[in-house]
Every structure is written in C-alpha cells, then in structure tokens.
C-alpha cells in the first residue's frame, strides 16, 4: 500500500509573492498529495520546524524578489542539523537579482541543498511530474 506523501509549500524569506505557491498547492492537492501550505514570508527556520513536525517528504519553495540566496544562506546546514537529510528540496522563481541565464544559477542553488531549481513561469504540472519521479526513486510513493 502506498502512503500519501506530505509536501510543504511556501514563499521563502520576506517575499510576499504568494500566487505561485497558491497555484502549486492546489495542483498538488488535486494530484493526491497532502499539502501543508505556509503562504508568504516563511522563514527558513519555519520550513525546517514544520518539516520536522509533519514528517514531510518534500519542501517546495518559491521566491520572486531576487533575494533567495541571502534568505537561504544557512538553510542547508540547519536542515541537516535538524536531521532532514532525506527531504526533497525544490525551489523556483526569480532567484537572483538581475538578468540571468537560469542554467547558470542552478548550480548555486544545488550547492545550497536543492534537488531541483526552476525558472519563473513554469507550469505546476511539470514540477509535480518531477516530484512524483523523485519520490518514487526514493521509495516514498
């Protein structure tokens, strides 16, 4: 019997751009996931504590204001300290300030612990297909 994976969504840092997380949260629910929707302005610490509390399988973060890197400086270390070694981490949006090639910033965020990095304006379905694939690979679905 397969269990229902728990996914946390939210906009990280001081960012208020919430629509992306609202869209993906609803799409995740419609795809059968259990969703913990934290909304806008979620601190990295809140993501970590909610992930511990809910035993979440993945965190899907959004950021549109260009300061995600600053917000997530210590995130990877803190989540490893919290024992969240096995959680999937996705992030998408306008992740840096300035005009950029999304391929160039991917390694930056992978180094911060993220498994997948998306440019702005991606359909929710694309992320959800990736999520299913990754969860299955880890035997969580």
């Amino acid at each position, binding site marked *: 019997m397969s269990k229902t994976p728990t996914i946390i969504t939210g906009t990280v840092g001081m960012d208020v751009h919430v*629509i992306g997380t609202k869209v993906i949260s609803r799409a995740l629910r419609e795809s059968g996931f259990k969703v913990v929707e934290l909304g806008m302005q979620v601190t990295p610490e809140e993501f970590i504590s909610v992930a511990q509390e809910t035993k979440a399988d993945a965190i899907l973060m959004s950021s549109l204001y260009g300061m995600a890197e600053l917000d997530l400086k210590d995130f990877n270390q803190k989540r490893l300290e919290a024992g969240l070694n096995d959680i999937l981490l996705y992030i998408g949006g*306008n992740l840096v300030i300035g005009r950029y090639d999304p391929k160039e910033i991917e390694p930056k965020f992978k180094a911060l612990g993220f498994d997948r990095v998306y440019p*702005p304006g991606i359909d929710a379905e694309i992320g959800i297909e990736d999520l299913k694939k990754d969860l299955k690979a880890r035997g969580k679905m």
Partner: protein
Amino acid sequence: MKKMRIVNKRLDDDLLMKKRREVLDKWPTGKEVDFEEAAAYQKSLPDSKVWWKVMAKLREEGRMSVFPRAGTPVLEKMIELCQGLRESGVLLIPVTTDSYTRLGQFEKVQGILDECNKTGKALLNGYPIINQGVKQTRKLVESVDAAFSPRGVSSEICIASGLTTYECGLEFITWAAYSKKMTIRELVEKWQNETRVAGWYADRGVILCTDLHGWLPTAPFPLSVNIVTLILQALTAAEQGLKAIYPLVHCMGNMTQDMAWIRLTPKLIREYLDKFGYKDCQIIGCCPAQTPLFPNPMDMGGAFAYLCYIAMVGSLCKCNATDLRSIDEAAGVPTKDTNTVSYSAARWIFNVIREQNIDFHIKGIEEEEKITRMEVEAIINRILDLGDGDVIDGLIKAVEGGVMDSPWSPNITVKDKVLGVRDAHGACRYLEFGNLPFSNQLKEWHRGKIAEREKIEGKKADYHTAVRDLWSFSKGKIVGLPPYDK
C-alpha cells in the same frame, strides 16, 4: 468581547504626537527628525521639488512625466541613478526601499548596508531610507532637481528628508499585498494615524501629496473593489486633513477597460469627496500604473512593449503622470542604463502622443464605465448600510464579511472567495462573485461576457482558466486561447 467601533473622525493631536515619537524611536536615525524643523525644511523647497506642484504644472501644460521605480542601497549610486532618471526627462523621482525596510527589519538592513557600503555592491533590492536617515537622504534630494517620493515605507524620516509625498501607512497595498496577518481594523487605525500626520503638516502649510493604490488586483480582476478602496481612502484621508491626492489606476491590458477606468476613477473620487463635504481635498492627477505580473526577466522586448502600452494609454487619456517600472523590473534592481532606455521610450510616447491632445471615441468605453460605476455604487451603498452611514465602520464589516474581496490574497484574513478571468476580448470579468453585493443584472452581464470566450474555446471557464490568465498579459497575449495552452 465586543470590539470598539472605529469611525471616520479626525484624531486627537495630543495622542498623535506621542505615537509619532514612538514610531521614530524604532531606529536611531529617528532622532534626526525635529517636527517643526522638518516642516520648515519642506517649506524651503523649490516648487520643482514639491510633488503636488509638479503634477499640477504638468496638467496645466498638457504634459506628462513618468513616475518610475528606482532604488539602490549605496547613497552615491542612488544619486547617480536619480540623476540618470532626471537626464532622461523624469520629474517625479521614486526612492524605492528594499524589502527588509518595508518590513521594519532595520537591524538586518544595517548589516547588509554596511557590506554594500564596503563593497559597493547592491545587496539590497532598494534604498534603505530609514537606515540612511535624514542627513544622508537630504544629500540625495539636494543633488537632483526633481520631486521625490518614498516607495514602500511611511516614515517622517522621509518628510524631514524633503520627500514631498507621503505614503500614509502604505494603505491598502500593505495590508492586502504585503501583510500576511494584519487585520482590516489594524490597517484602518494605521491609516488614520498616518493620514493625520500628513494633515498635521497641511495645518502648517506643507501639502504632502499621497498617491492612492487601493486594494491591488493581484491578477486579472475587475477594478471595482479597487476603486471603492480608493474612494474610501480619499474620504478618510480628507477627514484627517490631507489636501492632495491622486489615484493610481491599475491597467490590466484591455485598452477599452483600462481607458474607462482611467476616465472614471478620478471622477468618482471627486463626486464622493464633494458629497461628503471634503471640497478642499484636491485630486492632483491620475496615474495609470503597471501592476500585473511582469514579463520574465529575460523577455526585454515584452518588458519594453508593456511599459510603452501604459505610456500610450496614459497619453491618450491625457494623464499627467504614469507609474512605470523599467524593463528590469522582473530582474530586480534596475541599473542607470536600463532606466534611461526605459524612460526615454516612455518620454518619446509622451512627447509624440500626449502633446497631440487626441480626442478619441472607443466603442464600449461608456459601457465599461457604466458597469464599473454600478459595481462601485453597489459596494459603497452596502458599506454605508453596514456602518450605519459611517464609511470606516462599514468598510471593516464589509471586509470581514467578504462584501469586499480579492482573489489570490497573500493576507490570510481576506475571504478570497472571488475569482476573475479574461473574456473574449481580454477584459477582466468576475467568474466567482463571493459575497460581492452585485445585482443579478450585473452578474448576468459578467456571465454573458465570459460565455463569449467559452464559446470560442469550447469549454467552461473555471479555476484553471483563471490560473492560465495569471500569465496571459506577461506572456503577451490576452485574447482568445493563450499560446501556452496546448
């Protein structure tokens, strides 16, 4: 416990003075503000730095200026940025603050600002005006011959620095777009306090201008709720003594609808100000604004076209200003160069189109005006009922009950039971009405418009249609099947 009734009544100045100091005590630079000296400094400013005078002059001369967005943390770079704007013809200059300043995280800002100053790098997405303080910011104001306006922060540090608009508590935009948990009651109290501060300066002969944003339509959504908030803000600010306002009109991309809203909004605000006895509060202009989602940072062509569209609509409607972002808006902090090309493009349209003073007739514009007016009047009448004639008491109850509502709200106290989609011509219509107090006739009108699109697309409009429409304008297609809809 029954909550205390908040009404539209001028605040007591003794109470106000205490609160003003408390606000300034939040960061050491607040000590640089001496209220009477600030008023005297404001009075000493030349007309070219006084926002309402610049806008009035533009209107008289039949010209317009762009009101851009620009902010970078290091003072010298900020001066350079603003001088660049002035050179490209901008008379109305923004001091856009960074996201942390907007949230009052001054200690965090200080650490990053120190690093910015050391390295010369822009690590904040704006100018941290509170941490920079009065002395530093006066240097900025005195370096450029233009009027300055703070963006994203409301503090007397801005007034004392010589900025001549005042974002009175940032109004609805803070509550509905930047706050997760603030209630409408908290917003109203903040708004009354801050508008009274502007009123205090008006009593001393310093007229600070306030631009009203209202409750932002965060996605394709008709403007009627937004226009109601603009009217209520005008009425309640005027009660506190504010003397100069101008509305922003959030253009959504359907030209007929955008022009109807630009024509109607100042008219409606004037009517209600007069009706409630605030004849001395002047509406100093009308400013079409670039509000919906931007083209992504890599789509420079789209970003150019988008800003030129707003410049064009403003020019045709004979506005005196437009609220424009640069082509770098989606990329974050604009550089001097991208500002220059962006605003030269807008200025080109102002010079060529605005000065032709074109009279136009567009089919459908009267109908859009009529429908929006009916919607606005329906909501305001319900607010007055709910508040026993008091607009503030009624507003609080209206928001709490979803009589005023918005989709995709970041604020969790908003009902969020409404939804908008575009129709067959790209105009914004209500798909879900929630508790909006509209007659059946109005609802049927919207349904009829949406039905035309459904017929073309061969499927019912629903939540997924609304999701696809989120990107329609930024991807450059608002009519018919979006190109990304496979």
